[in-house]
């Protein structure tokens, strides 16, 4: 018996490694070992005022800082029985889209494209004046620009508070953004098409895991229930009954399953679950490339996100510039849950407040924690027949990367 180790995992966010057990030339077991240090966010929130939560939880993860902040504010609003003004909702949705665009562009062009092109990093691609790298970075910059406008700050945005948003983005900046978005509509599809080419990916078996995503309302990233690919639709606040979490000795992230089966969250799961609703694929079926189809699914979501961003900016421009975007908050006791789609998949925030509005319990479930069991199962399934050790190592890295794992998000966990 021999253990092969892919360490460190590179071009992913966070620290981890893959351990593969090989017996008489055959891969028999795989572990994704997440070594990232626990940051105990749920513990540090205990006893703090509701007002402090959004700013603190955004620090779980930089790439997902906007969606964490929105999730916390929404969960607390539901705990306190608050409805936020419609324009504030639009600003938050725009912030989510900015994060989605930035995160997907980062993953596709900075982290995945080097694999497809056979290089170590995007820096070599830039040196070689690869147009995909240049355009991909520009797209990533667009996502950041949107986050800056809607969130007030690129990383750890400050515009979202419990009760709404601090302000509407200034009119002239929204107009400039609209022009920028229009200009992108022709540029984007050819960029995304590159991720549809099966030749860019290693051979793969079908993506494993019961798909899980927010049962979206009119906006792909938000809703009140969870939808599973096995047909179940479950109210968001009942997440604890359907997601079975357990700690495993080898990883600092807990494993999730449902009915004993691994779960798959993320762009591919969202598209499959929302099939025929929010957006119909315009390019080849993303699912055909196994888990690597998650890349194309992200590409398709980029096209959707730019379209939605244009709609939202138009709505914001048509809205009353003097309308309230924040409602007064009366602190008190309550319990609230928010289910939302982060770029890498389902994210759940859940809080209980005491009668003074202090956090009595907090629970945060992140997409990478949800995906961890599926990642291990997929590695084993896809790499079964591979005997060459260097190929094993190389492919394992690509499979893990296809999930776009966010390891710093995944290790904050605490269950009371």
């Amino acid at each position, binding site marked *: 018996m021999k253990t092969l180790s892919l360490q*460190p*995992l*590179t*071009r*992913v*966010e*966070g*620290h981890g490694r893959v351990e593969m057990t090989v017996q008489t030339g055959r891969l028999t077991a795989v572990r994704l070992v997440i*070594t990232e*240090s*626990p*940051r*105990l966010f749920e*513990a*540090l929130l205990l006893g*703090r*005022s509701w*007002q*402090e939560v959004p*700013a*603190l939880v955004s*620090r*779980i*993860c*930089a*790439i997902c*800082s906007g969606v964490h902040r929105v999730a916390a504010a929404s969960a607390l609003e539901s705990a306190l029985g608050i409805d936020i003004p419609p324009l504030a909702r639009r600003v938050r949705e725009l912030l989510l889209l900015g994060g989605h665009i930035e995160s997907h562009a*980062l993953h596709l062009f*900075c*982290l995945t494209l*080097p694999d497809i092109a056979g290089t*170590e*990093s*995007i*820096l070599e691609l*830039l*040196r070689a004046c690869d147009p995909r790298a240049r355009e991909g*970075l520009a797209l*990533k*910059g667009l996502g*950041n620009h949107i986050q800056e406008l809607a969130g*007030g*700050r*690129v*990383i*750890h945005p*400050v*515009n979202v508070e419990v009760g709404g948003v*601090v*302000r509407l983005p200034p009119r002239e900046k929204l107009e400039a953004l609209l022009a920028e978005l229009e200009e992108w509509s022709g540029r984007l599809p050819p960029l995304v098409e590159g991720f549809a080419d099966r030749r860019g990916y290693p051979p793969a078996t079908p993506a494993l895991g019961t798909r899980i995503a927010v049962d979206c309302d009119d906006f792909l990233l938000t809703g009140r229930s969870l939808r599973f690919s096995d047909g179940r639709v479950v109210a968001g606040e009942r997440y604890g009954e359907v997601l079975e979490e357990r*700690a*495993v*000795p*080898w990883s*600092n992230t807990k494993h999730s399953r449902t009915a004993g089966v691994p779960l798959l969250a993320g762009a591919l799961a969202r598209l499959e679950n929302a099939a025929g609703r929010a957006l119909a694929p315009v390019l080849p079926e993303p699912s055909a490339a196994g888990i690597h189809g998650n890349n194309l699914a992200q590409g398709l979501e980029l096209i959707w996100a730019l379209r939605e961003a244009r709609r939202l900016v138009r709505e914001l421009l048509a809205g009353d510039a003097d309308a309230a975007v924040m409602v007064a908050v009366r602190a008190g006791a309550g319990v609230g849950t928010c289910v939302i789609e982060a770029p890498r998949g389902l994210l759940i925030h859940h809080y209980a407040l005491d009668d003074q509005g202090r956090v009595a319990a907090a629970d945060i479930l992140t997409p990478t924690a949800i995906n961890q069991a599926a990642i291990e199962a997929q590695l084993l399934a896809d790499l079964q027949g591979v005997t060459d050790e260097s190929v094993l190592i190389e492919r394992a*890295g690509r499979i893990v990367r296809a999930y776009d794992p966010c390891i*710093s998000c995944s290790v904050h*966990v*605490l*269950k009371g």
Partner: protein
Amino acid sequence: MKKLRLAYVRFTSCCGCQLTLLNCEEQLAAIDAVAEVVAFDMASSRPDDGGPLDAVLVEGSISRPEELVELLRLRRRAEILVAVGACALTGGVNVLAHGDRIELCEGVYGECAREKLTFPPQPLCRFVRVDLQVAGCPPERSEHLQLLGALARGGLPALPEYAVCMECRQRENLCLLLEAKQPCLGPVTRAGCNALCPSFGAICEGCRGPVTEANRAEESRLLLGLGLSEREVRARLERFSGASHEDP
């Protein structure tokens, strides 16, 4: 000009400081022209050659024995070690989880907790000489670019030693603290972000840590006057500064 041998590593953190460098989309090619990026796991699969470094940028606090070993190794390799961001400078929000760490970990991981050998997150300066501290949670893109520019020229950037309010007044913003009666921490927070948040219309949360000679007593008095409780005032002032947070 010889290229700067540079590494950007991270320990216990959120990746925000490193991501800020990757967010300099338009300058990445120029950075690549002056610096040889020896290690930057988040962005590159190039294997670290383990050789000497002109400079290492370090994000994050130290909370595991392996991290400490790696930090000491980096210190030996690097001419200049720069602590980047609140986590590296003071522990940042990581140190807010107070209480017995084993117990906290047990709360998280149940019986598996013993396997997770960690200690309370510590700033880098507890263990090694730090040549420069770049504040912020995260420090802005412009500060990353100034830092790399100065390092490429063989120097270190000058850091402002005044409060965010200075920059805020230069930008002629409405004062959120005095005029809008909101708990802005600008007066006690060190500048360098060009008063980013108040210029947007949101209060300064103090993410860059305390400015030297901060008048904390006066700030506390103002915040109490806005109706915050003593406990809330303390929590706000200590969020990014790593000051010991006592149990209420």
